[in-house]
């Protein structure tokens, strides 16, 4: 089985340049707009505010004037796990409502199958999963802007970033329907956040494809992933020239060098 995956598989992923990220919030709103993410009167309780893409503001905790800060956008990390497909959430979902797509490496969420046990949320260390505590309600007239490509989620289920999977489907439909196009090109399938980012901080593409920018960027000497040592094997890479920023990506024991604790993962 696995060999078969290997041959044809794409592995979509993202590289985010944290030295460029300005914390402007465009990615968050582009995502909300693209994916029919609902909003409610009070969104200041960040523990029940659905933000598939969330930008964290992180400080080095030093007192003025030595304080330094960086912003870090956090979509679903689309973990591959220690052996491809063993994502923290996919492995625990009792109803196969979240699944690992071996052809793209994307972790999906089937809204109509999820029955809201929230085990996946307990499993995810990135807080990338959100529960619909409330019925989604749009103010009178605003439901007009809802996109038919993504179904609005009902109360009582879990949702999360899908790497704008519907965009992949639309792009693939074009490939299937075209005589002279055999495969997706890099620009054919991009996520909404990547597209909107004014700073051009996000690069998205097939990590396995040598012609894609992400393939090279992920091997940058300053690239790192979040909580790498847990073996989550994520597909979101971050780049920063600042050592303290890279160190904030993982937990370290005293004496360990930043970036020295990469978890060995199989495959791909």
């Amino acid at each position, binding site marked *: 089985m696995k060999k078969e995956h290997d041959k044809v598989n794409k592995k979509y992923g993202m590289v985010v340049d944290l030295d460029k990220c300005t914390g402007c919030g465009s990615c968050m709103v582009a995502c909300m707009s693209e994916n029919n993410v609902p909003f409610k009167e009070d969104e200041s*309780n960040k*523990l*029940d505010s659905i933000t598939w893409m969330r930008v*964290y503001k*992180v400080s080095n905790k030093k007192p003025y004037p030595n304080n330094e800060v960086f912003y*870090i956008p956090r979509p679903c990390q689309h*973990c591959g796990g*220690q052996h491809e497909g063993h994502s*923290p959430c996919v*492995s*625990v*979902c*009792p*109803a*196969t*409502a979240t699944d690992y797509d071996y052809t793209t490496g994307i972790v999906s969420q089937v809204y109509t*199958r*999820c*029955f*809201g*046990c*929230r*085990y996946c*949320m*307990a*499993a*995810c*260390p*990135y*807080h990338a*999963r*959100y*529960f*619909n*505590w*409330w*019925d989604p309600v749009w103010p009178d007239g605003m439901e007009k802007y809802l996109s038919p490509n993504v179904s609005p989620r*009902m*109360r*009582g*289920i*879990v949702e999360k970033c899908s790497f704008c999977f519907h965009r992949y489907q639309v792009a693939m439909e074009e490939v299937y329907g075209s005589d002279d196009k055999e495969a997706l090109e890099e620009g054919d399938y991009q996520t909404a956040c990547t597209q909107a980012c004014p700073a051009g901080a996000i690069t998205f593409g097939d990590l396995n494809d040598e012609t894609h920018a992400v393939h090279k960027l992920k091997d940058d000497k300053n690239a790192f992933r*979040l*909580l790498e*040592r*847990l*073996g*989550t094997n994520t597909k979101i890479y971050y780049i920063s020239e600042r050592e303290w920023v890279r160190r*904030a*990506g*993982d*937990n*370290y*024991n005293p004496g*360990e060098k930043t970036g020295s*604790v990469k978890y060995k993962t199989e495959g791909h």
Partner: protein
Amino acid sequence: MDSALIPKGVERCSLKRFLLGQAIVGAVVLWGVYAMILCWMKGLNQTNMNDSFGFALWIWADLAVIAVGGGAFFTGLLRYVIGLKDLKNIINYAVLIGVCCYGSALLILAIDIGQPLRGWFIFWHANVHSMLTEVAFCLSLYMAVLIIEYIPLLLENRQVDKIPFFHNLSHNMHVVMAVFAATGAFLSCFHQGSLGGVSGVLFGRPFAFREGIFIWPWTFFLFTWSAAACGPCFTILVTKITEKITNKKLVKDNVIDLLAKISGWMICSYIIAKTIDTLYWAFVTAPHAGFNVMDFYDDNFWAHGIWILIMEIVICGYIPAIILLREKTRQNQKLLWTAAILATIGICLNRWVLVMQPMSMPVMTFDEWVLYLPSWQEIATTILPIAGGIMVIAFSYRYLPIFPQEQELNPVED
């Protein structure tokens, strides 16, 4: 008025007093039912759970009641499979407590899920890799087994027993009960383990994660072991409470003593295993994930302090183990009570810690600790099945011959 239904040769309080007591507990049940309906109609926004605390009070309650309900399977195992005859005098009650506990767990689960109408997807679209799927299958099967174990008891009601069909059914069921008990013990072993696996497999949550054998993390075995160890203590505790309330001796001391002794050995072996697991986790697993074990306990002292670990292992682990192991101490009623209570608290605390602490604890370096306090709806729905259990136990006690030794220990003067 209901004397025709009351088992022969035993004394029960007046119907009026019984109904009054039931009404008080019934009011609590109604409160819980109201909260349950709120949760079903309005959704889980009625709770204080949030995206960090997706698992909270309810999941803890599930784990806890199933852990203490472990007395049923373990006593069943000892009675029917290993053949400790003496335990037949407490097995009925152990089964009854088990029914209440497992019923509670299923009810809470039905409230806890965001889409209760789709709850059966866990069977239909089952993901065999998920510990929760294992839990769901074993839990429902074992619930069925418990009901089968409970039915003969029900059939022993004086009026029901008069019907020949039911009388024969009851008799025949008793004959095959060993098979069910064995099945039940296996199923229960498995889902107790799976429940342990629920947190143990979370490799993204360093507080919960444990290494293990094959697909089973150490918590899988520890949960089964601890349920077997502490479950009987809970059975003893409930029996003792029942004796206090009814003001009667219902089970002979030698029966209790046997169960207490076995429990003592189990707790002792469990707590040693748990200690080894904790040390390995603290000094190998946690540093491997980049944590110092004290990082796990360094927030709000009262909510997450290190006391919780000491409480669980030393005070609610070693102390009851020592009390129960020594004949002298376990036969001292006060100490027996103490041990039963501590062991019950200990196992509940263990479940609490494994549900709550992984949720509160930041894993990403820029995350923060999260505090959670349940809403009244969560508390009411958690108390609901407990109150319901009390009602079921009261009914069963009044109308069914639960305690075979009751007549002998409390001769009725006509």
